[in-house]
């Protein structure tokens, strides 16, 4: 049955895309406002946070790891950025310079946070799940402490300028969507075209084989966590101007949404198989579900999480089936 075989193989890679198209069609049927420029650019801008974080997560998961700390890390980095920017007002004249400094600091903190996760998993040999559960708690309470239980707000003089990063657009596409696209392209090349990407795949597939193939397993794994940290930082950089504030509630459940996006996209949770474009589509699907529920009265918006959850489980179930058929 060669034809059938080919079709199923196809379904496995195109499945997420088909689901995305289906959702778009549903969206169009549900409400005319769905296709408005305002709504579409809103969807793209919103999905870019989770999407960028999820691209980092694709590397971590492909290499057989997991990072639960990303949501708390995003909140922590937001807080740090706001504190840095607020405290630089008066010492540095140019608001743009202040913002740039905060962006650089943000990337540095993200990389450092990833490095800590990476070193704890590889050198201290603690399971990634436990390490990142721990650091998640640490960052979450740090941001609450920094905000003194309330909210950290960015000074208006900077906030007004910085908000352009979230609300502005180029060629009709909001800036966050451009950043998302850029990160996705870099991620795709990194995962599929470089030795580093190949090594991630090998480690996630079988760590011992990777070790016996002269791969610096610890180094590569640590690098995936650093990459994840930097993706979180990039997401934070475009997230802070949206609200201009950070609190203990910032970035709640981002880790689960990011992992969900990765899984919907077809990456295998136990590692050894990763798809960047799948992840991008996964992030879009998650945002679309929320958006469509907002636009319709048929299902309560409060059930957003339930619908997302069902979609994740269904996606994994379908992929499992495709794997099995491929094996045969």
């Amino acid at each position, binding site marked *: *049955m*060669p034809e059938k*075989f080919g079709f199923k193989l196809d379904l496995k890679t195109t499945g997420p895309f088909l689901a995305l198209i289906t959702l778009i069609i549903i969206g169009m049927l549900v409400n005319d406002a769905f296709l408005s420029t305002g709504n579409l650019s809103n969807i793209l801008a919103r999905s870019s946070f989770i999407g960028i974080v999820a691209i980092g997560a694709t590397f971590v998961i492909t290499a057989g790891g997991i990072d639960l700390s990303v949501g708390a890390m995003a909140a922590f980095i937001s807080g740090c950025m706001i504190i840095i920017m607020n405290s630089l007002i008066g010492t540095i004249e140019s608001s743009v310079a202040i913002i740039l400094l905060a962006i650089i600091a943000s990337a540095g903190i993200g990389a450092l946070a990833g490095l800590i996760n990476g070193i704890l998993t590889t050198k201290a040999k603690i399971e990634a799940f436990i390490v990142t559960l721990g650091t998640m708690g640490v960052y979450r309470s740090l941001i609450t402490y920094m905000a003194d239980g309330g909210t950290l707000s960015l000074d208006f003089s900077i906030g007004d300028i910085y908000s352009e990063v979230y609300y502005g657009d180029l060629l009709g596409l909001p800036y966050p969507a451009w950043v998302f696209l850029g990160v996705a392209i870099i991620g795709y*090349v990194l995962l599929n*075209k*470089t*030795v580093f990407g*190949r*090594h991630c*795949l*090998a480690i996630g*597939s*079988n760590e*011992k*084989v*990777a*070790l*016996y*193939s*002269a*791969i*610096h397993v610890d180094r590569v794994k640590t690098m995936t966590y650093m990459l994840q940290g930097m993706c979180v930082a990039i997401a934070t950089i475009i997230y802070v101007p949206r609200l201009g504030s950070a609190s203990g509630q910032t970035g709640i459940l981002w880790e689960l949404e990011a992992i969900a996006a990765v899984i919907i996209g077809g990456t295998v949770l136990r590692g*050894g*198989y990763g798809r960047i474009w799948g992840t991008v589509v996964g992030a879009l699907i998650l945002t679309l579900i929320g958006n469509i529920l907002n636009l319709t009265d048929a299902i309560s918006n409060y059930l957003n999480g339930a619908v997302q959850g069902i979609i994740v489980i269904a996606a994994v179930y379908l992929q499992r089936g495709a794997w099995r058929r491929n094996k*045969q």
Partner: protein
Amino acid sequence: MSTHRVSKSFGHVEVLTHIDLEIHTGEVLAILGENGAGKSTLVKLLAGYEEVSAGELRLATADGSTVPVASWNIEVAEQHGIVLIHQEFNLAEQLSAAENIFLGNELKRGLFLDQERMLRLARKYLLALNCQVDPATPVSELAVADKQMVEIAKAYARNSKLLILDEPTAVLTSKESEVLFRLIERLKQQAVAIIYISHKLEEIERIADRITILRDGEMVGCYPASSLSTDDMARLMVGRELSNLFPNIPAPLDEIALRVVNASVPGLVQAASFELRRGEVLGFAGLVGSGRTALMEAIVGLRKLTASAQIEVAGKAVSYPNLAAARDDGVAYLTKDRKASGLLLNLNLVFNFSLLSLSALFLQRKYAGLLIDQKKEQRAFEQAIKTFDIRLKDSAITAGDLSGGNQQKLLLAKIMAVAPRIIIIDEPTRGIDIGTKSQIYHFIAELAANGHSIILISSDMMEIIGLSHRVAVMCRGELTGILVDDEIEEHEIMRYATGLKRQPGKNNSEDQLCA
């Protein structure tokens, strides 16, 4: 039990064609064939792991006739007392031996498990197998041979009528194999039917009553064991004459390629010293667990050596912090466990082939700069397929789909892609058919003849004797001797391997025998 014109296809590839088998109670039926001949698939059909694509399975009834089986799967097969003991064990590692023996079949007293009785019975079964293991020990702490005994005890506890053993002695020492053979004898007397798969022809000659030979998924024939010599078996399996299994290898050069002095690995190897010359095949013999693998892994940077160790490669003192450093210096290690540490079974062949060489800086222009040049990579892979005669059924398959022999060739291709000068080969022909074995021997001979230096670790005595210029023997972490010329002979090697004999100067601690 019997099969009638049974076939099996995966997708559009037929791997078994019209197989007719009959298995009688109280006999040992050996199934012989090269790797990829379909032996494992056949026994999986019998034990219900795979579905039959065509033909039928029949079961014997009380009156001596046979009836076709309606639906067949693992559970139904087990109900009929048919148990397959895998090459890879099917044990729950965290549970104790006793818990594994009664897994899914637990004895209960009321609502609760009757731990005491299970332990007692488990001990009884294990003792019957001449196995001294405490049934309360977690399986993860058992030696491989004991794990196998637990598997057999499990089958025994289920009162199995047909026991299928898939290469049981691949993981056993000769002494342990002996225990297994006696056990098989005893099971035969209890009217248990046994299907036995092995590549070791001497074993088959010894224990089989009848021999079925498969070649490329088809039956060559079924013969009474007494009518075949091991030469006949090999000939029927391969379908051609196997002349000179072991090729001639020219004498090595005088140049020293590798010098190891006082290499110790804490707890595993004590002060091993040896030299390897250019163009030499140096055999490493010893019992399982004698420290040969640990020593080699330490030399290539996969384990820590003690500070006293001195290693020279081509006259230059080296100390490799990791395998990448060894690889970049022209030293390669071919692992003995191709499934656990050799190949990524779920990934495609090209990725597997290039995995070791991709990140080698000195090979960058070959197929990877900043980005991987996938065209060049593919071309290099296609070249390797030809060089190493890797046989593909379908170009899209993963490494796990290859037969053992082809996996081993792929592994060899992966190692040779980094053009090493010193190649350490660990158990290159374990679980491999005789045709592929012969090919691998010829590769080794060719490498040596071209000036490569080779260390060959093997538990196959014929292989060590047939290929090596000199043979180093290890016993309990110590190098007890390096044998040359006439000393290279089975009994002499065993004397050194068990510690009965020891060359002067090869570190004489006063301890007792190894075995």
